[in-house]
């Protein structure tokens, strides 16, 4: 049989449930979910993790990660996470949010949770549209990008410039780590995982708020093939949303 001289070197993390996802071909949620799952396993956090789910395509994340979870109203996950962490500071509390959820309706909650230095980790998946609701304009939609609520393309004069969340979050006092990664290449995925680990360590080492933005594709609402959508990240998104670490106090004892 097949198992005599074979060594299992790659498997599904225990934190990731064996279940087909509902995501579109080329969507990066699957990759992001897996990175989170790998870290929960590697850092042995699964059994004390509390996931604060949000509203967007990833609303069903609780079906894909094997952790306790609560559903937060649109944009409010950082506040819900604050309540959960204050109530049970011995648990690992993290949110997973899209760009409409975090940067539009949830702007106040993310800024204030970050500023207070809540010991939570935020995974921010930025694909420059409202995916679940059919492709409307988001705060991170690029100028000229066509969406269902800016069919002529985002117009700077009318809609303003896209918001750079990692830059903003990195300016806040309670933040111990803020970085922007991308999921469009193996190299970038590896770096993104390192960023996520640092953000998680902000909590496990009681250093402050941890934040990672992950540039991602939405082929369906960008009206592109999965391959072309993936290329758009490198060609259009990264020039506007530069990758890198914007704040790192993890070696200096944290934020507060």
């Amino acid at each position, binding site marked *: 049989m097949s198992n005599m001289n074979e060594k299992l070197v790659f498997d599904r993390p225990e934190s990731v449930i064996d279940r087909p996802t509902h995501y579109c071909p080329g969507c990066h949620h699957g990759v992001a979910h897996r990175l989170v799952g790998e870290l929960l396993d590697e850092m042995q956090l699964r059994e004390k993790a509390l996931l604060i789910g949000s509203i967007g395509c990833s609303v069903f994340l609780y079906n894909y990660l094997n952790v*306790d979870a609560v559903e937060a109203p649109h944009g409010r996950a950082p506040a*819900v996470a604050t309540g959960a962490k204050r*109530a049970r500071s011995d648990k690992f509390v993290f949110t997973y949010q899209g760009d409409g959820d975090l940067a539009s309706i949830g702007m106040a*909650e993310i800024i204030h949770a970050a500023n207070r230095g809540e010991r939570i980790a935020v995974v921010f998946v930025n694909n420059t549209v409202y995916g679940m609701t059919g492709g409307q304009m988001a705060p991170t939609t690029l100028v000229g990008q066509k969406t269902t609520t800016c069919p002529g393309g985002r117009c700077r004069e009318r809609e303003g410039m896209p918001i750079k969340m990692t830059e903003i979050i990195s300016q806040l006092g309670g933040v111990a780590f803020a970085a922007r990664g991308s999921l469009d290449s193996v190299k970038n995925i590896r770096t993104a995982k390192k960023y996520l680990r640092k953000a998680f360590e902000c909590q496990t080492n009681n250093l402050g708020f941890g934040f990672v933005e992950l540039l991602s594709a939405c082929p369906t609402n960008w009206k592109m093939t999965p391959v072309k959508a993936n290329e758009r990240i490198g060609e259009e998104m990264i020039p506007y949303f530069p990758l890198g670490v914007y704040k790192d106090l993890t070696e200096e004892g944290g934020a507060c």
Partner: protein
Amino acid sequence: MADKIFIKGNEAVARGALAAGCKCFFGYPITPQNDIPEFMSQAIVDAGGEFVQAESEVAAANMLLGAGATGVRSMTSSSSPGISLKQEAISYMAGSGIPAVVVNMNRGGPGLGDIGPAQGDYYQSTRGGGHGDYRLLVYAPATGQEAYDLTVKAFDMAFKYRNPVLILGDAILGQMKEPIDPWQPEIPGDEEGADWRLDGALNREKRLIKSLFLEEGALAGQNQYLQAKYESMQGEIEYETFETEDAELIVCAYGSIGRIAKTAVRKLRKAGHKVGLFRPITLYPFPAAPLLEMAKAGKRFLTVEHNLGQMVDDVRLSIRTVADSEFFAIYPGNLPTPDEFEEPILKCLEGK
């Protein structure tokens, strides 16, 4: 028994919460309830709990959702406009089965209104308040002692039913100082909520607390479960009757207005008028049965509220098969005195 302390109703609510084991308080400044977050900002921390002045009432209500999901006794407080802000989170908590205590010190409305007492939030309090078919257990204290006692009870009820519970006071109750007996109730141990709360999937299946039900029939099932819950809440009905046995006219009033009306009834009784007071203490579930009994006994009804007519709907619904209720409004923005109740009561007594 502890000595009495002379404190505002706001502080009585906060002390009641602490006595009941409230571990987290999330608040925001708004008149006339600021004493609650101010008191809590020191007292709950001294007691080993957590205080957060949130960035908004929206955020505070969502923090309450998060803490409640972990099975920890938690509370928020606000006043009318801030309670409006909390409605989405309250609907989510009711739909998800999350225990929580919410305090509303009703002020004048609509909109910014004023900073004085009113009862304009009765509909909001008793009809869920936010979107969807849900209800809160609603307590309407009339005195500082009731504010303390009912806040203690609110936490037990929130966990008994896994539902948000609302304490509905007003600016009079919040700002008035009275002697309070700060008795210490028995508090449940760490096992409260152990069978459903989120505390990490260690040696057990993961748990999910949500209000989204998309599969065919699932939301109907969830709503059936909620309706059954509200049915079982009927057992928590509380009310006060005063001089009603031989009364010809029953004055229905709740909260501070009920207390003031009691003074008016007492005075009119001394003058020989056969009037009585019916004071609901739970606004939801509404004490319909005792009202209907009095209606069947031939009594007449006058509902007095500090609004333009809200609880009177529930009085009418309760007695609709046999009687009707008159209504007298004290306008929000005006402060009520017992004297101004006398004329409408007498007019009603004499019968149109």
